[in-house]
Structures are given as C-alpha cells and as structure tokens.
C-alpha cells in the first residue's frame, strides 16, 4: 500500500461576518511512506485546518492533496483520525467495540473483528480493558483506545490532532514513548499536530513550522536523532533550541 502524502499549495478561505478570512495560504509539503511528520505552530496558524483538510472534513479552496498518489475526495478509510477530545470514543461501546467500529463499517465478520480489535488493544497495552466502557478509563487510556481504533482498519495514514495536549505532563511523556513504539511496530505514515516544541522533537522525522494569520510554512526541519530519543541529551536540547528559534522569528 502506498502510504505517501503530497500536499500541493493548498489554501483555505472561509466566509465570516468580517468578510473573507484566509486561514491557510499556499502550504505545500510531502510525507514519505512511514514517515512521522509534526506540524508545529502557535494557535491560529491553521494547523487543525490543515489536518481537517487531510481528513476530508474540509475541502481546500485551492490546491490539491494526494494520499497514496490519489487525490483526496471527501472522507475515507485510507485515513485514521485521532482527535484531542477524550470524548471522541463512543461511550455506549466498550473499548473493544469502539476499536471494531471501522471494521464493522467495512463488513468484516464478527470473529475476525474481535480478533483484530484485541490485537490492536494489545498494541496499545489495553487488552485487559477490552470490555471496559470509556468512562471507566483514564484520559490517557481513552486516547490509546482512540489510537487503536484509528489503526484497526489499516488506513494508509494516521492523522493526529494534539491527541495528548489535554493530558498531564507525566502521562504525556509515557504516551509519546508508547506512540513511538506503536509507530515503529505499524510503520504508518503519521501527521501529528502539536504546539509543543519538545513533543515535536521527540516524535518527528520531519517538522513543519507554521506562521499564523494566515497559516503559512515558515520552516521545514529534520532532526536525525536516534530513537528512543533522550530529551535530556545535548542533541535533543540543541534541536529544541533551533526549533524555538524558528518559531520566534
């Protein structure tokens, strides 16, 4: 399966009571197969808008998005989406049945669905909570179920919109570690939205720094650090400093 993403000078404008608002202007980038891209920027830089266009929730005013070489047309099972809000899980379904949802939509048979769901719950270390309802799980656990759910139907790319932003710092560190492991195990192409510099350096192969009003690409960076990355190492700190420099100018 071709898991590349090509974004060709997309622009997004919308109508508001103050007239036309340019949210994203002429943004282009490529993500290679199996690559982890972080989109980093201050609030108002249009990073969520870009993700929503990738997900097919919004259509670019101009420009084109190709996933697996094919233009994105609406929403589809070639993309898995993880949102920031813990409430994204269906409260009336157990963790396992949440993960099964995408497979259900594809008409996969009961037994196979169950087996696949359990496999992905094992991947996020939650097989023991397969029959728990979301409200019985902590925020971090709910986000892991959401990741398992977005991966279970084997999309080409995983889109994540600040999935750990609402977690406490300690849980967030643990989640970033686990996400790296999951990503290495599944070899998915990931687009990850964040406003946290350390998080971007910890997770990404490629970082896209955006400027706000309108959202434009300010810098594109790559840090070739050995994984698992050590946030206290000199290279890590140097990378953070460089990134911060790009953000502030």
């Amino acid at each position, binding site marked *: 399966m071709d898991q590349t993403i090509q974004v060709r000078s997309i622009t997004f404008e919308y109508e508001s009571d103050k007239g036309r608002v340019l949210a994203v202007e002429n943004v282009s980038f490529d993500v290679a197969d199996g690559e982890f891209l972080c989109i980093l920027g201050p609030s108002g830089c249009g990073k969520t808008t870009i993700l929503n266009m990738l997900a097919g929730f919004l259509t670019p005013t101009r420009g084109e998005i190709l996933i697996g070489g094919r233009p994105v047309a609406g*929403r589809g099972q070639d993309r898995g989406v993880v949102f920031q809000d813990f409430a994204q899980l269906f409260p009336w379904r157990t963790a396992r049945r949440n993960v099964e949802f995408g497979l*259900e*939509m*594809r008409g996969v048979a009961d037994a196979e669905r169950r087996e696949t769901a359990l496999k992905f719950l094992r991947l996020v270390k939650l097989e023991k909570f397969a029959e728990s*309802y*979301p409200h019985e799980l902590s925020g971090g656990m709910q986000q892991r179920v959401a990741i398992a759910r*977005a991966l279970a*139907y084997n999309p080409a790319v995983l889109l994540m919109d600040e999935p750990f932003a609402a977690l406490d710092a300690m849980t967030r560190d643990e989640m970033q570690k686990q996400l790296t492991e999951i990503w290495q195990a599944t070899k998915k192409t990931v687009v990850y939205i964040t406003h946290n510099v350390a998080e971007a350096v910890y997770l990404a192969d490629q970082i896209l720094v955006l400027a706000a009003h309108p959202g434009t690409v300010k810098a594109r960076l790559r840090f070739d650090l050995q994984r698992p990355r050590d946030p206290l190492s000199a290279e890590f700190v140097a990378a953070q400093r460089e990134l911060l420099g790009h953000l502030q100018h």
Partner: protein
Amino acid sequence: MNAPRSYVWRSVWRGAAGIVTAVILWETFARSGIFSRALTPELKAIAVTLYSLIADGSMVKNAAFTLWRVLLGLFVASVIGVPLGMLMARYRAWERFWLPLVSVLMPIPTLAWVPLFILWFGIGDLATTLVVTYAATFPMIYNTWTGVRSVNPIWVRAAVSMGAGQHAIFRKVVFPGSMPYIITGLRLAFGRAWIAVIGAELLASPTWGVGRVIFDAKEFLDSEVMLAALVVIGAMGLLFERVVFQKLERYTVTRWGMLAPPRV
C-alpha cells in the same frame, strides 16, 4: 451500582416515610367526620375492597386492559416519535415542516381530543388507544429531536472518518448517542399516557379498564372502589417508574457513563 444492603433499606424506608405520612393524614381526615364515612372511607375498608376486587379477578383484568392500552400506545408512539424526531433533527426540511405542527399540537391537552376521537372512532378500545398514542407521541418526538441535537459532533466526525455512511451514523451513533433523552422521553410519554388512559376510559367507556371502574363506581357512590382503583393506578405507575425505567437506565445510559446513577 451494588449499594450495600443497609443503604438500600435506608432508601426504602425514606421512600416509604412519605407514603406512610400521607396514609396517616388520610386516616385522620377520614375519621374526622368532616365528610360522611361513605365518602371518605378509612384505610381498612379500602384495603378490604381492594383485596376483594383483586381476589375475584376483576381488578387484575381491568388493570391489565389499562396497562395494555398504555404499552400499546407507548409502543406506537415510539415507532412514530423516534424516527420522526431523528429526521427532524438531522434534516432541515423535515424540521421546518414538522416542528410548527408539533409545537401547535403538543400543548393541547389530550383529553380535549377525546370527544372528537369518540365521534371519529366510536366508543371503546380504538378511541382509547388512539388517545393514549396521541398523548405519548409528542414527548417522544420532542425528546428524540432534542437528544439528536445534543449528540456530540465529535462522535459523528469520528464515525465518518471510519467510513460510516448516513445509515450507520443514524443507527450506530445518533441513536445510542441520544439515548439519555430518548429514555427521558419514554418516561414523560409513559406519564402522559397514564394520565390520558384513565381519562379516555372515563369518557370513551370501553368495557374494561381502571378508568371504567372509577366511572362505574361513581354511579353507585362507591368511594371505596374508586379509592381502591386510585391505589392500583398509583402502584402501577410507581412500579414502572421504579422497576422498568430505572432498570432501563441502569443497563444503558448509566452503565455508559452518560447519566449519573440515581442517588440512594
């Protein structure tokens, strides 16, 4: 969910305390001589009458008829109200067409329709059941409509991102997502149906029914039978509220964390 036994008993006792107080007040009033005994029978006489009505099977049959009409009306009301409420909430055109109609019809007291229903459908079962259905339909429509609009948009987004089409969104996201409101709608509909059924039975006089019992007893100034029938109506309402609806909530929305469990 499994409260310790002492808590359960305490709650039963607290719940019973109000009823016991009311019973004592009634008994005092009945014996005060303000009205004649024939009009305000004391508790024991009501109990004896109730017992004999149950023992000869007539009250059971009357109650069964009344309950059947309520449940049938509730069923038809759900079959109409839930899909209509969902369509109204999801599609602008449906909302524009139906909402004014619902808003006009809902505040009309159901009993005001009974004479017309009798003219249209005759005296008896059909008119009674239709009155009940009418009463129960509006809370179902209204609550489902509200419930769907309360569905968290992120659930729909997540479902759509996983490839759900319109049909799957309705059945697997919007319907369960609006459950807290739908169950509340059922509760309200049951309450309205219960009020409507007794009134309709009084006016449209089918052969059997608790309302009919009261109506007949009036002819003979038999206040004991009338009060015994009221006890039966209250008890059945309580039973449904406590047993059926609380159970339904416990196994669905409370279990899903969408509604806090009732306080013990």
